[in-house]
């Protein structure tokens, strides 16, 4: 459902317009659209032609659908119902037909339009009343007064429900927290390797050097990966030598001595 604009003036159609160029999104539902179309008949709602109204609505929806593919489903259902109403109005009631007559359905639609309009007018009349804080004022400097002698704490029902809803909502969100992982930086790995290899000219397997760090399962991968990458870097810099005798076999390291051995 598309979001409806809710300002007061945004749905006032241009009464002088010959062509209906009203966006369906500007209406608050099919009944609102029908009421607007009914007003265009410029007669009292009691004297309105429901048949003509149904036809206008159907024509309007058809135009909208030509231009835009999306028309909210409830407008379409109303269109279907109005088409049904139209057929009931045009075909005389057959004897034995149990369904409400077209006239009855039309009267109910008229009733609903009148009621909606009545509520609109009432809402407008309410707004014209002398409103507190706008037209009429309370005491500007209230003086401390113990109003309720029973409860010194105040909370409204709304606040109570709001508090409950908010916290249930807050705690219903399952937090995904990625596990913080220890990562050996290349710098760390290089420093460690340098320290461990020291001056040793013996071929010693990398895993042996790193034995004390490989004990923890969650760190094993990062220790191996960073150390291996660093060892390549150290080889490139000519500091150490590297040897592996078979695929996946242990990697041996030793300090490189100046001058070939």
């Amino acid at each position, binding site marked *: 459902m598309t979001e409806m604009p809710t300002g007061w003036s945004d749905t006032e159609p241009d009464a002088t317009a010959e062509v209906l160029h009203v966006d369906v999104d500007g209406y608050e539902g099919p009944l609102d659209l029908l009421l607007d179309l009914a007003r265009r008949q410029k007669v009292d709602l009691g004297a309105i032609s429901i048949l003509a109204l149904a036809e206008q609505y159907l024509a309007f929806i058809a135009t909208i659908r030509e231009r835009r593919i999306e028309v909210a489903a409830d407008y379409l259902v109303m269109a279907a119902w109005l088409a049904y109403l139209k057929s009931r109005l045009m075909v005389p009631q057959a004897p034995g037909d149990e369904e409400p007559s077209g006239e009855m359905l039309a009267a109910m639609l008229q009733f609903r339009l009148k009621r909606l309009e*009545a509520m609109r007018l*009432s809402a407008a009349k*309410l707004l014209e009343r002398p409103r507190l804080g706008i037209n009429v004022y309370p*005491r500007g400097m*209230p003086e401390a007064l113990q109003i309720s002698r029973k409860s010194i704490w105040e909370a409204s029902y709304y606040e109570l429900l*709001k508090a409950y809803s908010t916290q249930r909502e807050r705690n219903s969100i399952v937090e995904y927290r990625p596990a913080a992982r220890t990562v050996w930086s290349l710098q760390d790995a290089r420093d460690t390797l340098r320290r461990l290899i020291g001056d040793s000219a013996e071929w010693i397997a990398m895993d042996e050097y790193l034995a004390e760090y490989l004990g923890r399962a969650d760190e094993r991968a990062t220790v191996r990966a960073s150390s291996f990458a660093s060892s390549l870097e150290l080889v490139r810099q000519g500091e150490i030598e590297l040897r592996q005798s078979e695929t996946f076999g242990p990697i041996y390291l030793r300090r490189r001595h100046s001058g070939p051995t």
Partner: protein
Amino acid sequence: MSNRFSEVRQRQLRILEALLFASSEPLSLAQIAPYLSVGADLPALLEELRRHYSLRGVNLVRRGDRWAFRTAEDLEFLLRREEEETRPLSRAALETLAIIAYHQPSTRAEIEEVRGVATGKGTLDLLMEAGWVRMRGRRRTPGRPVTYGTTDAFLDHFGLEGLGDLPGLEELKGAGLLSSRLPSTLQIPLPFSGELREDEDPLAPGDAGEAADELDRD
């Protein structure tokens, strides 16, 4: 003796006046009573005070079961302050408020039936937050839906003594426009938006009316 009586009464009136002046919120009889002597005729005292202030710049007004001093309505243009409402009510909220006020107690489904559209999220919430609408209880029908009604703060805000003062109430009643209960066979299948999916087809012309009714609840 009569002098003594009038002195006591005078004092009660002064206390009542002080209490009502001191509070910016309307006070109920139950809230006032403890401050007056036992047996004080509170309604009569309130009426006397109301009459005393009726022509003054400040009036004593009734709001539901509560009483408060408010500036006189006819002075509104003079006193009207520069700043407008901080958050003007949306059309949806205003209509919902009017429907609740005139039809109460009303359930959400009934509000939606009158408007022909689903009540947007936040509309009732906003009206309750403003303190104008409250959940009243539950309707004794299947599903026991929550019923909504207006508050005394609503009366206070719109300057109404009681719900009977709602503008045009009698005419609406007379015109039968406040009877929300329609015979179920005559209910127009006004769908509540969101209850029909985009991938649903509308009913074909000539489809049965009652079946269309059901769609409403799908």
